[in-house]
């Protein structure tokens, strides 16, 4: 079925057109983004169980962007009355004028930016989904998750709790200017199992998830993840601490995705180029990785949790080749940064929700596959680790530093997995070294969308990332 576009948003269209017309009397450019995204979330553990409708991306509201004298300003509201756009226009003008007065008192200079183009464009995209969160069979879903939690508890004597989460969101967004009228509707879902284990005062958490474009039907695959969540948690209870040092490493597709995201995701967000915050700006058309490294970014390059048709500034979605054969080709860009840099926007202008500002943000960030088999990769390692399970990551685009925290490393000696596990593992290093040392790339790859991404320590958005198994050298602690 197609995910139907919001009737509520359709009902706003005449009023929003009038609002744009009114504001254009005072401003040189006016756009509106209205959202109506509904969701469901079910969380079942042995000790608490709840159902709700609020996910990370559910929202209903409108943000208005206006431009005058080189400055862009925005106003977010959630009580827009399509019968009375005059009062919204009055509220917007009055507030922005009050802000302008404060800025005048502060003698604030404006970082002048050109006017966004407003080429005519009109489309409606309703993506395929198996079902909608609004129509989910909650009774069955609760039963399924409770079954997973109960079964998990029976799988190890060290289980303290087993948490099964499922959430699904039906995104509907409307973008309008004088000449643009874009509508999109799609559904994404994600679920996870967290196995919490404890022994002798030591706690460990095994984790596994599913994600993708589509509705609650995706949760059928969640049961398959239980065994890994529990068994990896048990392995971590028995794990040793790693001896810090530099090792040959093989990253699983999930860890490869984390590297893609942290290394050349944040590092080529071009709003950072505007601020002079990213080393990537100086490395366009230069070698940043081995010849085996090719990486794509864009809402169109995978079908996952952030595969939209247009971004939050009304730019159609893209698929950018960021790194081609180890050469950094380009970055990703929101519309205002593109104006300032004199480049084309890539469809990566995203907001946490309508209340938040647009920044250049990632969508799907993925390494291309190669020609090696995992078996050959393991066989080639003298002493190193197969890194598995993602916990978190952090980048430093100014210096291409990277920090990845992964759940565990499986020891490899003389080309064979020894069965010894170390946990947890922190991988740090210099991005060009990490990518430059990639010597083998597997044929298969995975894409994962269970994570969220912040800009600094805020502005959380959904992203997905992934890739194949990669063999490189990394500093582990």
């Amino acid at each position: 079925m197609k995910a139907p576009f919001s009737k509520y948003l359709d009902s706003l269209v005449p009023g929003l057109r009038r609002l744009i017309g009114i504001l254009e009397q005072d401003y040189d450019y006016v756009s509106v983004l209205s959202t109506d995204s509904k969701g469901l979330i079910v969380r079942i553990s042995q000790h608490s169980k709840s159902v709700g409708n609020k996910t990370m991306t559910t929202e209903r509201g409108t943000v208005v962007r206006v431009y005058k004298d080189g400055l862009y300003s925005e106003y977010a509201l959630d009580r827009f009355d399509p019968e009375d756009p005059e009062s919204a226009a009055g509220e917007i003008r009055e507030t922005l004028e009050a802000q302008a007065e404060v800025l005048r008192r502060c003698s604030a200079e404006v970082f002048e930016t050109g006017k966004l183009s407003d080429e005519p464009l009109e489309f409606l995209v309703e993506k395929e989904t198996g079902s909608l969160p609004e129509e989910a069979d909650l009774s069955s879903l609760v039963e399924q998750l409770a079954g997973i939690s109960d079964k998990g508890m029976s799988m190890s004597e060290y289980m303290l709790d087993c948490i099964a989460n499922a959430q699904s969101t039906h995104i509907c967004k409307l973008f309008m200017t004088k000449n643009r009228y874009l509508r999109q509707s799609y559904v994404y879902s994600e679920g996870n199992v967290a196995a919490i284990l404890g022994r002798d005062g030591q706690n460990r958490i095994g984790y596994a998830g599913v994600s993708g474009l589509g509705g609650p039907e995706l949760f059928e695959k969640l049961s398959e993840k239980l065994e890994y969540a529990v068994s990896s948690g048990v392995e971590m209870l028995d794990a040793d601490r790693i001896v810090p040092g530099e090792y040959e490493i093989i990253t699983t597709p999930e860890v490869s995705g984390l590297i893609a995201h942290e290394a050349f995701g944040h590092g080529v967000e071009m709003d950072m180029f505007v601020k002079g915050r990213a080393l990537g700006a100086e490395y366009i058309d230069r070698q940043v990785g081995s010849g085996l490294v090719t990486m794509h970014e864009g809402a169109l390059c995978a079908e996952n949790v952030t595969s939209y048709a247009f971004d939050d500034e009304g730019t159609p979605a893209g698929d950018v080749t960021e790194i081609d054969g180890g050469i950094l080709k380009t970055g990703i860009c929101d519309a205002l940064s593109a104006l300032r840099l004199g480049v084309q926007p890539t469809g990566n202008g995203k907001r946490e929700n309508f209340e938040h500002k647009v920044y250049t943000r990632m969508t799907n960030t993925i390494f291309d596959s190669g020609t090696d088999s995992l078996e050959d990769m393991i066989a080639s390692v003298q002493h190193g680790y197969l890194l598995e399970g993602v916990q978190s990551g952090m980048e430093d685009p100014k210096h291409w530093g990277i920090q990845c925290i992964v759940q565990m490393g499986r020891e490899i000696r003389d080309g064979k997995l020894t069965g010894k596990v170390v946990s947890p593992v922190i991988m740090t290093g210099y991005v060009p070294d990490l990518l430059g040392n990639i010597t083998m790339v597997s044929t298969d790859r995975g894409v994962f969308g269970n994570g969220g991404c912040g800009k600094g320590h805020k502005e959380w958005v959904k992203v997905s990332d992934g890739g194949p198994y990669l063999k490189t050298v990394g500093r582990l602690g």
Partner: protein
Amino acid sequence: MMDKYIEILKSCGADAWEITDTKTRGWEFYFIGRRLDQNRAKNVEHINLKVYKLSEDGKSLGIASAEVSPTESEEGIRAAAESLVYQASLVKNRPYKLNQPQQVKLPDAELNPLAAEAEGFIKTLQGIEETETEYLNSFEIFVNRNEKRLVTSEGIDITQSWPTAMIDLVVNARKDNHEIELYRLYDLGSCEPDQIRQDIQELLQFGKDRLLAAGTPKLENTPVVLSTDAAVYVYQYFLSQLNAAYLVRGVSSCEIGKPIAENIEGDRITIKALRELPGSPCNYAYDEEGAPIRDEILMEESVPKKFVGNRMFSQYIGLDDSFIVSNWSVSGGRKSADELREGEFLEIVEFSDFQVDSMTGDIFGEIRLAYYHDTKGTVTPVSGGSVSGSMLDNIAHMQMSKETRRYSNAEIPSVTRLENVVIAG
């Protein structure tokens, strides 16, 4: 509209219910260098409905919640409420009693107007003294006025107003063609110009030192000193261990009256929940479930005195007077900050992302700037490598300075010394 929500929830068949209506007016200013990149404002309202449904035999309690838009029709709200009652009937929790009304004095709700507060922040940031080589790359200012009303079926009806603010800041330091940056996110209650200036000047000095930093040597078991906001995560680990949810799940083994470790050789830790902490963005009188927040000693000299948490988990461990902690403090230790900086140690002031896992106690962080004090007293700025370890190995040996310092909603010792962490250079 609140009357309408109350009427609908009263008649929807729920055994109990809560309505939370949060209104926020916010102003935001984004600067690149000293120039205004963008200004923004918001006027938004978030309405959350929560219903509770007892099973027919009274042995289980279902919970379901939904956010409804302020533009939702009466028909839509009614449908949402009925749907919530059905959803709640699907999940079975151990029953517990909801909070009952309790009157406490609300803080003075007279807040500085948004315009005046925003002007104070902008002028403070504009007034930061820069040099040719250390300067502000970009900053973002967020100023909010929040009002929250909580109404419940148990008779709670509370309206609280409080201010919040945030500064997102990047500073640069440059020498010839080499430039570095440091990042901070300050969570604040209101504009305190002197404190902001002091914090940013400290950051600019860190930037200058990072330019000179050598690679972190292999130090392995050298003691680590934390003297910036990263240390908050160390103490949050202890606070989490006192949370009722952690006790119910079995991930905390804390017991009232029993020391958290044997043979404690370092400083013993005392943690207090605070109703109010000057400058905090969390100065409100009631928690989100309507329980009054009060000053309370939670752990004294490393001995748990009182557990805290939300209503559900608190009731599950038999607490009837608990609350969700908003502000908290950790008392200082026996030595001064200078005394803790004796001998060989690595003082880490900047991490990429320092973490202390509240469930496992694992410690991680990539070092962006640290000062290595060797046995001869020489101080060398270093960068790179990582620190890792476990809180379980540090509880009995960590030391805290007498002096304290506030970060957001927590006041902690200004210097914390960890003896058992591994430094990978």
